[in-house]
């Protein structure tokens, strides 16, 4: 899956890919103060590519939990399950339904997205990407967007969560790359000097099939140097 990190102070964006084996579960957000955790499980194409560099991976399952509300939400391209304690509610992507309970609102917009709000100040959007059912290679997958995180604590971490705090970076020595349309540059971020490439990724919040191009500086090698610690630190054993 590809990650886009908007950096408002710079009016720019950073992006990176995470290439891990299907089945791997990644910690995207963890906030010990609000009790919110978001994990994502990776899936691959229907036919796995032998070459790990050309294989596509996506999020096929998202687990969103709020420990204080005792709420868990599991989203797959097939269904949406909500647990209140042990009691489970199941919804389909064909539903248009708003579920409201103390401290949380979940709005499923038929075949499009789920808007999930925890109180005032934390809002996530899960986007459903549907491909042709009989497509020989690709399969349905999910996108995850954080549209409001201002109530999340300073202790929030995770592949996405670490970027909820102010981030600074400097780009210099912009020069032509092998692909003339993708210049390369040197970036200094989190005390690391990285070689980055100018490119773009797509934001699919508005339309899951078209998407809006977001220009970004691409950090190679699974975001190495941009991400705190090692990628292995973000791998967790289970969705919840």
């Amino acid at each position, binding site marked *: 899956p590809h990650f886009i990190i908007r950096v408002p102070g710079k009016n720019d964006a950073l992006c990176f890919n995470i290439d891990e084996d299907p089945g791997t579960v990644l910690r995207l957000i963890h906030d010990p103060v609000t009790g919110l955790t978001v994990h994502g499980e990776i899936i691959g194409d229907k036919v796995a590519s032998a070459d790990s560099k050309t294989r596509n991976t996506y999020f096929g399952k998202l687990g969103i939990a709020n420990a204080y509300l005792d709420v868990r939400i599991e989203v797959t391209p097939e269904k949406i399950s909500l647990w*209140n304690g042990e*009691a*489970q*509610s*199941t*919804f*389909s992507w*064909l*539903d*248009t*339904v*708003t*579920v*409201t*309970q103390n401290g*949380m609102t979940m709005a499923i917009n*038929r075949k499009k997205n789920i808007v999930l709000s925890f109180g005032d100040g934390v809002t996530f959007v899960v986007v459903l990407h549907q491909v042709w059912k009989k497509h020989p290679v690709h399969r349905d997958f999910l996108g995850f967007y954080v549209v409001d995180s201002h109530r999340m604590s300073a202790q929030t971490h995770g592949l996405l969560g670490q970027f909820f705090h102010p981030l600074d970076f400097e780009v210099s020595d912009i020069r032509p790359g092998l692909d003339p349309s993708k210049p390369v540059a040197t970036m200094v971020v989190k005390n690391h000097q990285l070689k980055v490439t100018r490119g773009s990724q797509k934001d699919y919040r508005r339309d899951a099939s078209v998407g809006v191009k977001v220009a970004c500086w691409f950090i190679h090698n699974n975001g190495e140097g941009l991400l705190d610690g090692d990628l292995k630190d973000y791998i967790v054993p289970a969705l919840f």
Partner: protein
Amino acid sequence: SLPEMVVDGIEVYSTKIHCRVTSRFAHNTVTTRATNRAETAKEVSFDVELPKTAFITNFTLTIDGVTYPGNIKEKEVAQKQYDRAVSQGKTAGLVKASGRKLEKFTVSVNVAAGSKVTFELTYEELLKRNKGKYEMYLKVRPKQLVKHFEITADIFEPQGISSLDAQASFITNDLLASALTKSFSGKKGHVSFKPSVDQQRSCPTCTDSLLDGDFTITYDVNRESPANVQIVNGYFVHFFAPHGLPVVPKNVVFVIDVSGSMYYQKLKQTKEALLKILEDMKENDYLNFVLFASKVRVWKDHLIQATPENIQEARAFVSNIAAEDTTNINGGLLRGIEMLKKAREEHQVPERSTSIVILLTDGIANEGVSRPEDIQANARNAIGGKFPLYSLGFGDNVDYGFLEKLALENNGFARRIYEASDATLQLQDFYEEIANPLLTGVEVEYPQNAILDLTQNTYKHYYDGSEIVVAGKLADKDMNHFKADVKGHGAFNDLSFTEELDAEEMEKARQEQDYIFGDYIERLWAYLTIEQLLDKRKKAQGEEKENLTAQALELSLKYHFVTPLTSMVVTKPEDNEDQTAIADKPGDDQVDVPPSSAVLVGYQPPQTPYYYVDGD
């Protein structure tokens, strides 16, 4: 014809039951063709047992190619015709409640030697979803072997059919397998039951028919989405049946009649059912028992959570219930209602829970407040619309009309528990129906000014495996966008479902009309409206009752439905004298009382006069 197929001069050439179901609305036609092979005129009769929930819509009699159609008339007008026929010495066959689910339609007509007669009865009903299935129930009971006997059902469900089954109680599985075919694919389902003459025989050499029993078709539709809306010719129907939601905890008070009349069998069966119900109770439910005879006593002073320990204690209590004395329904009922109200007010039960009163009685109040109207008013005032009351009438001596009104006035319904060996099962079945509320306070909303003549759109509960059906008219027949919102309270959260149809989907729905009988949604709407008006009428009084009666009558006449307010009259001119047949609908509270309604057929008196000698 085979000689064995002619009984008393009459050969029944064919009996065909054809059911056409579109979106749960069943349109059934029963056709029997017979020939009088005798050398003299003979009486040919036609019996059909149809569901109590169905409305007859047509009956025709065709004799030697001439068809005599049925006309729907206001009951009083038809009654005059009936009285006149009776005064002219004509005999009458009666329509009466037949068993638990059915009512019987009987017609007989005199047919000249060599003449052919065709009877055709049509009735319609909205199949209700219960425990996850729609059930169509047909009674099969031909009086003799029939050359062509056939039941066919064509089901069309726009949501797609997820399961389909057909069962016959009267035939072995081997025979059923060769005579019965059932299939479904996508939106269409088909059932055919076509036993040959040999398969109809009760034994290889017998000439009597083994076809005597229940033929039941059950099916369900795909539920990818919780709701489905269909619009045809300016009428819409909205089906709502979400699943996959947790069950809302219940606070149940069982108000049980333990008066002398419940002694032995009824109490034994009640206790057995309660013990089974206790097994099925969920741990987050709350319960209590209120027993009433001349005095009222309770198991506990307040509602108790259904923990394993408490259930064990409840079982011991139930096992020791004994019958005594007279019947103080009012006292028992008010005690139960107060207990539920107090539990809510004092936060003894979870905030997100639903309260239910279940009254079980076999008799008529004869202790304390005993006027039914007073008991009804007391219960109504005490409950104040806060929770539903369900009435279970046990046995034959119960005042069912009273219990039904009591339940309807309090957002519940009444059920008859038939005094038979399976009474325990009947009680359990009732409980299972209401044991799993998934939503409470359900409101189905449509944009203002867009919809007219809406059927009931608020429900106290939505139970798992059931379905909420709302129908209405579009203010603008050509509207190309339809939106409906369903709001309800779940076990942990409030839910708001939205159903939208855009122009493209509406056009697709219109194209599907090719598969269905065109005005079915309009008829479904009329059926549902009449049914609900009749229910409201049961609990109304004075001018309100008159208005409801007038509305239900107008719709019954307009849509050709035989309801408790109308009769169908078939007139057959013969020998310069009209012969008249009248089809009526008996009410459920008329069981075991002389039916006030009748099917009357003009009947030629015997050629030889009878002479009577009486003891006096």
